[in-house]
């Protein structure tokens, strides 16, 4: 208890409480509320970050740290938090993100002054951080579920924060419904576990799978996969995510996409690797398949978006898919008895988890800055922002390169690890299942390349070329606090990309806890400058080496110019306009146009609807007026959720007859119920 990480953790939790209280107490003084609540949040986040770092850096020898937050109500309901390696790793993720977000919020929230109540936003923001941190460090089922529910409710309130827009209200309701389905599944799953353990503490659940019958174990797996899967946003349970994340204030969007959906990953990791024991084959296959499906469909739907924040939300689905590919492969390796490879796959998945938190947080913050400067989320009305907001543009570019899994940044490293785990998985089994690994690797390649296409579009259309609207032409760089928040995450993306072996070393205690292996010495070569996939033979990568190589080669073109191109002049001129009288922004390529080839190639999936109206005088080739509309609806909404909704409405209309308002009927119901219960008791 007296160890520094535990003290820092409790301090961090307390800080969030203070921040929330400050937000509520200064409802009418918005400047004070802003400084107090977001200031408290950033300090608490820093303290949490240190707690996680110190705990993980101490190595695998340190025992889990426990502390009691409140006196227990009864022997079952205890408010105990525990810092163990897995929890500490996720604490690190959320605290890193929360620190950057709180700094950003100090500037960002000024946009709400006089319009919305900043105190309320600050209070909910702190409460959400508190609940999410508690989810990661909860020591028993009770505290976990309470924190889980507070997290869902505060997130709901933040999603519908701008409730004067119908879009935000609808998204909030959808989020509310989906998060309660997931809470229901998780409660059922934990009840199954509780039956076997007879105790609520997480310690008693460790390795419980052996005590459960196979049927119950599978049932628990399905319940947790659905429950945590909804929270993580896996396809096809994802529909709330692209609705809810974009409508929230951008600092909250970043938190939702960067950390809150990771609670689903945390839950799955905790349950699958800590509680349920050696998995049967189909669990791993199911998780890998769900991951692959989410990755490919997530990025394909992202490409169809021209709403900047919705595009980013769909990319969260893609990245959750990539994380699950790592976890699914790890489960398959555990099944086939290859703990070392399983650890490699687990490291790949969890490395991508922290990476996604940094670059997605960064991109949402960039989108928020753009939104504040241009007052629109529609990319078709942006353009040319790189000249008006140079620093935001730079940060967004770093995020775009990272998320597109391009070297030398962090997205590349974790996807490289995933590829390596999948490739080596081919040799783990003689059965036909081995083909699953390279095929999902190929889908990962497709995902990566499509993500690059999508971020060329997102960055190119938003920041490059000419401004497409008056708003974009008059945009200004955002407040320094906002840029600081983005700079923190940019630095994280670069550092996690260039020094992967450092993070792998921090993950040693975590893998020791979950699979009993430590790979940091095996994975690093040449004093940690080179990352290997288990041995030097199977594959090596050095992002730092790549950067050095690029820098060392730079003198070649420079020298050539000094020798040959001396005395040449550079002139600024207009872009070639085919002899017209200058280019207008209307002639630029649009976001919709950019993704047209993809829409055509995958039209069986997208089933795009288009509506073109032309007005012309003499020939259709010389249109006077043209109206074009193109619309893509998700196949899951069309085929799954809409019929389901119709079914539910129809059933509830029938059921309504039961509640007719007649007291006689109600008395009859009570009587029948009583009778049935008595029969049941017999």
């Amino acid at each position: 208890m007296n160890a520094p990480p535990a003290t820092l953790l409790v301090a961090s939790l307390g800080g969030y409480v203070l921040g929330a209280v400050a937000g509520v107490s200064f409802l009418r003084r918005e400047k004070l509320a802003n400084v107090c609540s977001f200031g408290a949040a950033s300090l608490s986040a820093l303290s949490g970050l240190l707690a996680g770092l110190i705990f993980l850096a101490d190595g695998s020898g340190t025992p889990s740290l426990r502390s009691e937050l409140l006196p227990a109500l009864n022997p079952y309901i205890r408010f105990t938090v525990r810092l163990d390696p897995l929890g500490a790793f996720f604490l690190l993720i959320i605290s890193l993100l929360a620190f950057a977000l709180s700094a950003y919020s100090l500037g960002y929230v000024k946009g709400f002054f006089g319009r919305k109540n900043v105190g309320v936003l600050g209070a909910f923001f702190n409460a959400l951080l508190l609940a999410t941190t508690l989810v990661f460090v909860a020591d028993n089922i009770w505290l976990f579920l309470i924190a889980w529910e507070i997290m869902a409710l505060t997130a709901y309130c933040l999603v519908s924060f701008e409730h004067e827009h119908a879009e935000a209200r609808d998204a909030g309701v959808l989020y509310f419904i989906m998060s309660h389905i997931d809470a229901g599944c998780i409660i059922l799953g934990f009840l199954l576990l509780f039956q076997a353990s007879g105790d609520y503490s997480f310690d008693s659940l460790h390795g419980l799978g052996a005590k459960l019958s196979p049927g119950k174990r599978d049932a628990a797996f399905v319940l947790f996969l659905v429950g945590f899967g909804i929270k993580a946003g896996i396809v096809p349970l994802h529909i709330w995510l692209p609705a809810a994340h974009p409508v929230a204030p951008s600092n909250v969007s970043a938190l939702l996409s960067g950390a809150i959906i990771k609670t689903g990953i945390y839950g799955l990791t905790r349950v699958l690797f800590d509680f349920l024991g050696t998995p049967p084959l189909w669990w791993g296959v199911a998780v890998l398949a769900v991951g692959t499906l989410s990755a490919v469909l997530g990025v394909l739907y992202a490409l169809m978006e021209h709403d900047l924040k919705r595009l980013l939300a769909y990319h969260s689905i893609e990245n959750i898919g990539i994380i699950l590919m790592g976890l699914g492969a790890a489960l398959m390796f555990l099944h086939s008895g290859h703990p070392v490879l399983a650890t490699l796959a687990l490291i790949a998945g969890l490395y991508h988890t922290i990476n996604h938190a940094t670059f997605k947080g960064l991109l949402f913050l960039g989108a928020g800055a753009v939104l504040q400067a241009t007052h629109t989320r529609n990319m078709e009305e942006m353009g040319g922002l790189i000249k008006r907001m140079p620093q935001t543009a730079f940060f967004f570019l770093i995020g775009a390169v990272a998320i597109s899994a391009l070297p030398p940044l962090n997205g590349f490293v974790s996807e490289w690890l995933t590829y390596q785990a999948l490739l080596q998985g081919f040799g783990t089994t003689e059965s036909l299942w081995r083909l699953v690994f390279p095929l999902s690797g190929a889908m990962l390649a497709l995902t990566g390349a499509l993500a690059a296409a999508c971020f060329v579009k997102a960055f190119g259309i938003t920041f490059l070329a000419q401004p497409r609207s008056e708003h974009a032409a008059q945009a200004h760089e955002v407040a320094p606090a906002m840029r600081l928040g983005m700079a923190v995450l940019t630095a994280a993306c670069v550092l996690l990309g260039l020094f992967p072996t450092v993070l792998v070393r921090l993950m040693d205690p975590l893998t020791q806890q979950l699979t009993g292996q430590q790979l940091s010495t095996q994975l690093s070569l040449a004093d940690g400058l080179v990352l290997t996939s288990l041995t030097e033979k199977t594959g090596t990568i050095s992002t730092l080496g790549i950067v050095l190589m690029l820098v060392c080669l730079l003198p070649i073109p420079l020298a050539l110019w000094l020798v040959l191109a001396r005395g040449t002049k550079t002139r600024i001129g207009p872009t070639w306009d085919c002899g017209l009288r200058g280019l207008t922004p209307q002639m630029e390529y649009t976001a919709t146009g950019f993704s047209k080839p993809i829409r055509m190639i995958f039209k069986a999936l997208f089933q795009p609807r288009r509506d073109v109206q032309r007005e012309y005088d003499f020939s259709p080739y010389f249109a006077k007026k043209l109206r074009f509309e193109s619309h893509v609806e998700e196949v899951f909404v069309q085929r799954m959720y809409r019929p389901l909704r119709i079914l539910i409405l129809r059933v509830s209309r029938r059921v309504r007859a039961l509640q007719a308002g007649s007291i006689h009927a109600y008395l009859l119901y009570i009587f029948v119920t009583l009778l049935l219960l008595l029969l049941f008791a017999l």
Partner: protein
Amino acid sequence: MKPFLLIVMQTALLLLLAPLLSGLMKKWKARLQNRRGPRLWQPYFDLLKFLRKDMVISEHASWIFSVTPYVLFLTAVSAGLMVPMVTAHAPLSLFGGALGVVGLMALGRFFLALGGLDPASAFGGMGSSREMTLSAIAEPAMMLAIFTVAITAGSTNLSQIVLASQGPGWKFLDPSHALAFAAMFIVLLAETGRIPVDNPATHLELTMIHEAMLLEYSGRYLALLEWGASVKQLVLMTLVANIFFPVGLAANTTPASIGFGLIYFVAKLTGIAGAVVLVETTNAKLRLFRVPDLLSTAFILATLALVSTFLFR
């Protein structure tokens, strides 16, 4: 000092051989079409000319436009240093194997596509859009083909793959490698912008892909981009030549073995260049929306390659 010398040698080889390869292919293509064609050395003269020219930069362009030529050029050369060319040990293969090469090329492409969008011209946007789409469709086939070889060799490190091929148990072009080679060859056509995917000789705005992105570049930036593109072509061809036909690579660094390695390397390269030229002359360019069919053929071939590693074991 030895490894450093190897790096310098391979860099020089990449930079000097790349334009020659382009020239050779142009020459052969012209001959097959009963034209005389430009001189073999013409690409060098072009580069020198471009380097000495003044530049015009679009008024709408930002710093991305100026950074792009460097990124494309440097990533292509760096990728080349990870691929074994003449010696079995690529000088910098420790920094990244097959995945590193693919990643670096993707980085170059990412910036090139941004550079196409930057000057606000519709042609550039069109080129970027098409380039990113086709490369996305080509990527899974390429990865699967590389995986097939990597799995047999037990490594993604290109030098290790080449070394494994000289050990026992490696059958030269067994069914799976033959199928993977077919897939990789189609991908090579797409990635280097050759007919039937893209026409390197066209300047007809509506059909071009690669050229459309370069439309606003001039002077030394254009030189760097053209040079980078030809280095990229050389790297990809080397990759195909050396992982599917791993014969004659120098195992050590004695002058004699390097000399032999060089002869083998040039022979393999001209063989593949000849095949590409034959395909280019005997085929018409495909309609843009027919190209995905071709690339999915490549993907199916690569999948079959993978399945056959399983069947013919």
